[in-house]
């Protein structure tokens, strides 16, 4: 059997396909079919020849095999420092061999590559900082994922994830109607406590267009309400688009580049339609990376920038606190040891390291903020990045991966972890569930709302 019913080289493009694949619980049949999946070597080699440019070629060729990348990889550290987890080995034994053999590889090899690409690398890009030759294996693993995806060798959840983006243009089955209704519902739900609270949909020419992560309308709509409250208190003229509101990209984790482009163009179309002065994304690292850092390239924008300035939530929050749009009641500041998770996707990948610390300087009583070690651009992945969190097949490996973050948090002695990234937030929640170290974790929005010094006229009239 060259291609299976669920496991095949064709992306999921219709709702029926999507529901059918979802119905294959845990991907049981999917992975069985994968054992029979043929490799189209000619197509694979043609695609490598077309897309592998001098950067990757050179990286594969000049790697000095010095092994200095080993210690830079948290997965190497938490997996007993087995040599099979050395980044250089991981990429040379997969992509390196695939290129050497000019794409003439078999099913077993592709499955080994899949396991390596999705369970032994979270594309956190940390190794790139520790390679004397400037070889970034995270970048190469992203590339390898694209090749694997095109041949149908992709974990079940990510095949579905990218299918979700193709069908709903959201990582979950949230339709335009669901989204708009959720916004209306959240505004109503909170307007008693926050008179005048609005979530304006499709307002043209606002100062800010806000976009988020589909998990918010689907699973924690209070996050949208919290964003609305903070914009409201700050007096911002803002809006959300009815279409193009979802800025995450599971297709980026899956290696479905065509879908990545479609999604980001959808968000950019909203920007062009609503003409906001700038866009602000939610507290999510990979969403920011997809829409703001990588997105412009998928969309073919030669300046590498989105159509309007597009910033991460932490940048807006720091600015609002700095300019006094939001005021913190000093008596309500955090007065317990607290630490901060630096998200790879916007710290190592876009340098937003100081701005998060600026926020902490407003909301944490001096002396209570404890840095993780290492931190900032040297910080380790939360343990669940690059799609790792969501893949059932690799849950065990993911749980091992969480240990690095656990050690780092335990070393700080803090019980509270601020994680302004959905994926890090999930990973830290899972690590508490798995290892029960007695910690709490939070996004910034609820923390800030709890300590706001709200002007009287914005509060509900007293009884």
């Amino acid at each position, binding site marked *: 059997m060259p291609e299976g019913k669920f496991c095949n080289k064709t992306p999921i493009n219709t709702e029926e396909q999507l529901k059918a694949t979802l119905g294959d619980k845990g991907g049981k049949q999917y992975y069985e079919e994968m054992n029979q999946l043929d490799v189209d070597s000619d197509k694979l080699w043609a695609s490598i020849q077309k897309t592998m*440019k001098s*950067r990757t070629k050179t990286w594969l060729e000049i790697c000095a095999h010095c092994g200095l990348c080993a210690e830079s990889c948290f997965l190497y550290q938490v997996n007993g420092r087995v040599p099979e987890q050395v980044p250089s080995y991981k990429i040379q034994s997969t992509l390196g061999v695939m290129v050497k053999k000019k794409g003439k590889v078999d099913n077993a090899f592709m499955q080994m590559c899949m396991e390596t690409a999705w369970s032994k690398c979270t594309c956190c890009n940390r190794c790139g*900082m520790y390679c004397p030759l*400037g070889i970034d294996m995270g970048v190469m693993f992203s590339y390898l994922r694209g090749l694997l995806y095109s041949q149908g060798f992709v974990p079940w959840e990510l095949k579905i994830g990218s299918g979700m983006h193709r069908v709903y243009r959201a990582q979950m089955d949230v339709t335009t109607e669901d989204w708009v209704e959720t916004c209306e519902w959240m505004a109503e739900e909170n307007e008693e406590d926050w008179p005048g609270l609005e979530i304006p949909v499709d307002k043209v020419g606002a100062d800010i267009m806000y976009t988020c992560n589909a998990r918010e309308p689907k699973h924690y709509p209070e996050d949208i309400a919290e964003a609305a409250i903070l914009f409201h208190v700050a007096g911002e003229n803002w809006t959300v688009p009815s279409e193009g509101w979802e800025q995450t990209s599971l297709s980026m984790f899956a290696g479905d580049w065509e879908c990545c482009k479609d999604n980001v163009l959808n968000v950019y179309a909203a920007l062009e339609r609503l003409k906001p002065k700038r866009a602000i994304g939610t507290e999510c690292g990979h969403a920011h990376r997809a829409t703001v850092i990588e997105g412009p390239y998928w969309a073919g924008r030669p300046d*590498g920038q989105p159509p309007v300035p597009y910033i991460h939530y932490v940048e807006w929050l720091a600015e609002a606190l700095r300019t006094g749009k939001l005021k913190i009641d000093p008596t309500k500041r955090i007065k317990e040891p607290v630490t901060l998770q630096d998200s790879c996707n916007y710290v190592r*990948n876009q340098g937003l390291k100081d701005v998060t610390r600026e926020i902490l300087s407003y909301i944490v009583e001096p002396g209570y903020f404890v840095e993780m070690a290492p931190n900032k651009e040297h910080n380790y992945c939360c343990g669940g990045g690059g799609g790792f969190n969501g893949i059932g097949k690799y849950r065990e490996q993911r749980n091992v991966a969480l240990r690095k973050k656990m050690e780092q948090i335990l070393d700080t002695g803090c019980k509270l972890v601020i994680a302004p990234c959905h994926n890090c937030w999930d990973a830290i929640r899972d690590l508490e569930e798995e290892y029960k170290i007695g910690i709490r974790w939070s996004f910034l929005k609820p923390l800030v709302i709890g300590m706001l010094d709200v002007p009287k006229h914005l509060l509900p009239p007293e009884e």
Partner: protein
Amino acid sequence: MYDFLTGPMLWLTFAVSFGGLLVRAVMYVKGLSWQLDRVAYRPNMKYGIRGGIRSIVAFIIPFKARLWQTRPGFTLIFFAFHIGLLVTPIFLAAHNVMLQNAFGFSLPALPTGVADGLAWICLVGGLFLILRRIAFPEVRIITTFYDYLLLVISVMPFITGLIARYEMGDYNFWLAAHILSGEIWLLALPFTKLSHVVLFFMSRMQLGMDYGIKRGGMKGTDMAW
């Protein structure tokens, strides 16, 4: 033999080696793709150059990059090996005599003692590089025969050069062996991963540009390499 090795063969070697390296550098730049690499090189050239230079500087100065600080032992061996390998042949008095004869100019020459010392450091450094490949599992797993071969090609001119210099055995034989092994090394530069003599700068520059342009440089936060 000597005349041939230091005459036509040397010229051919230089032409192939330096010409080849130049071709590698040009091909590297031509093979970059802003869209596939996801780095807008051209429109953000200023940020890119700045990031690129920061990235190169951090890695060519011992103990500057975080990497070098985390591995002090390796850093010492690594830099000793590379400095010995590059400085000795360029500033060796005997080589400069040849340069003087051929072109009528020469570079400042190293005192013999220093040159000997550098050559020995390079040899010992090379030995350590081989030993760590055998000793450490994380290096052993990625090491191939090719890696050893390149190390041998790189230190062979030093072994033969030192034997000739101390006049052990037949001087003329060892001198010829020295010249030949030096030429083999030069010829290997563009065709093997020894091409990192130029591609190190290209790759580091590129990653530095990546960080300088989209991964933080334009946000005003420099990467703490």
